[in-house]
């Protein structure tokens, strides 16, 4: 269905820094390539690389499920909006 193909913003959280990896961004890009294919750079929005590992990506429902099963992924969750208290 159309909604299943619709891309939404997700956070792919991968925990602590990847040990022995020089570029977290390249790891994140490689994961996106595996799941999204040639559109990886278009849909990889931001990499967390200084204090922990993870990235923000636009994914379909199916891609989100695939991503959440990948090695090294702690969780994949939607980019929700919080409110000021």
């Amino acid at each position, binding site marked *: 269905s159309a909604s299943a193909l619709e891309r939404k*913003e997700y*956070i792919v*959280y*991968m*925990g*602590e*820094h990847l*040990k022995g990896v020089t570029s977290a961004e390249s790891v994140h890009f490689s994961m996106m390539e595996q799941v999204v294919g040639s559109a990886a750079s278009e849909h990889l*929005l*931001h990499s*967390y*690389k*200084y*204090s*922990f590992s*993870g990235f*923000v990506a636009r994914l379909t429902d199916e891609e989100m499920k695939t991503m959440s099963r990948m090695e*090294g*992924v*702690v*969780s994949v*969750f*939607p*980019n*929700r*909006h*919080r*409110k*000021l*208290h």
Partner: protein
Amino acid sequence: TTRSWDFMGFPIVSERTPLESDIIVGMLDTGIWPESQSFDDQGFGPPPAKWKGICQSPTNFTCNNKIIGARYYNGYHFLLPGEILSPRDSEGHGTHTASTAAGRQVVGANLGGLAEGTARGGVPSARIAVYKICWAFGCADANILAAFDDAIADGVDIISLSVGGPFLLDYFEDSIAIGAFHAMKNGILTSNSAGNIGPALGSIENYSPWSLTVAASTIDRRFVSNVNLGDGRTFEGSAINTFDLGPRMHPMIYAGDAPNTSAGYNGNQSRYCFSGSLDEKLVRGKIVLCDSPRIGAVRAGALGAILQTSFPYIKDLAFVVPVPITLVEMQDGGNITLYIKNTSQPMGNILKSQEEKDPRAPFVIFFSSRGPNRITPSILKPDLTAPGVDILAAWSPISPPTGSPEDTRSVTYNIISGTSMSCPHATGAAAYVKSFHQSWSPAAIKSALMTTAYPMDPRVNPDTEFAYGAGHINPRAAVKPGLVYDADEGDYVRMLCGQGYNATTLRLLTGDNSTCTSSNNGTVYDLNYPSFALAAASGTPFSVIFHRTVTNVGLPNSTYTGSFGLLGSSEVGLRVTPRVLSFQSVGQKMSFTLTLQGQITVRMPTIFLTWDDGVHKVRSPIVVYPS
């Protein structure tokens, strides 16, 4: 803050360390108004050497030696009118929280003459690093995580985050808990607001064990805007009303007598003061009495409005109003209605607000989110409470103080309420403790704040610890707690094992070979937390042992005796073993167990475990409640 710090016994002249100016407070919020007097850098030296951040200043925004860093995170969202693509705060909230945590002293701060005094943060000499994560659409998780990622790397000492959402999320699907976890790993305590959806139980929005969760309570200052009637009577109204209508009386009209009939309204509709329901000719220049808290009368040209409300907490907090408005209780509103109905030329006035002393203070405000913690019921949340009601602090002059389009005022200080306001008080207190003890872990700082908190009165706080946690912050005492319940990343990992996380996930979180074994599984009770909570099956006997370790940070040779303070009678048996802890050195650790045995069908009355060496009282609440 012109009253809040004094109210908690933390006067302007408190002991300070020169190292306070090395403390960097990271504010994740709506940005900052850098020209505010609260952030003047006169007298400040260059940023501390440990600072690695930047000042992202696209246009018209510059940092100084007080605001040493600033970044903004907009993701991929369009700006709404009035928003500024820079760390500059067009909302006011971030300026307010930053000045509460670490603003410098500003004499004579006030809002229209109200709450006048010296505004100040908890650590006036500390530096501020700004991470603008919130925009008109809200605060996206992606922005929150990006800010944590940068702030940790930049070298901040404390993180303050006054946002949340009504989502019940696993810790590692929650951006705030994830960010705070990595902050903790890097020695940074995150102070979080509890949430504003109380008083329902279980409404806490930030509940991770490694962060400090702060409830909101009142101070002993309340604002009243009274109503005077032509017959000499006065009724108490609730509002932060800066408008002075002068000494003379003004004509009054009941909204039900001024329907906009040309638009099809009758008196039964206009009495509620919906916009457009009132006849402008009849209300213009008059004080209108409305049967509901709506501002349609002012939009129709009224001089002012008296709004009746059945809201039960009207005397607990007041809101800044954009025009001369005050809220009155229904009974008083009924009397004012009778006066208007039975008087040929009813006259009255709405007085500019006055400050009154509130002898009930402090109590936790109704909106402050309550425990228990629904993700980990055996970790008590909130952790403590701090002032969050009618707090005056710095503001962005381009943002109306009420946010209302009717409000044309530009102010540099504003009075607002929320757990957003209590959180930076705790942040400031945590930074104050850190300035004296720069090597202390986030858990040790949190422990110091919790075990030295002032006891709250359960008679005015029926939700007791679920409302206020360990009690009300007491910054001066927190610097000298005597003992601390310390914890490191490994302790939280062991707790997470007990929570059911598998080794694969934990290894990713920690980046090492952490694993769950039979010896560290099922140990939520044993997280070295400064409070004790047990969710017990109703009517089922239980026997639970909590293991704790305390570190001596007081006198080298000190002997602490454990005792229980009980308010009311308890069906639960309590035992602490050993009852005496004798320390020979600072930094020495000693362990004890707390055993709870019994059976409950209702929540156990408040009990404290207190370790006392004659100088320090190290107090922890014990909460047993039906799961």
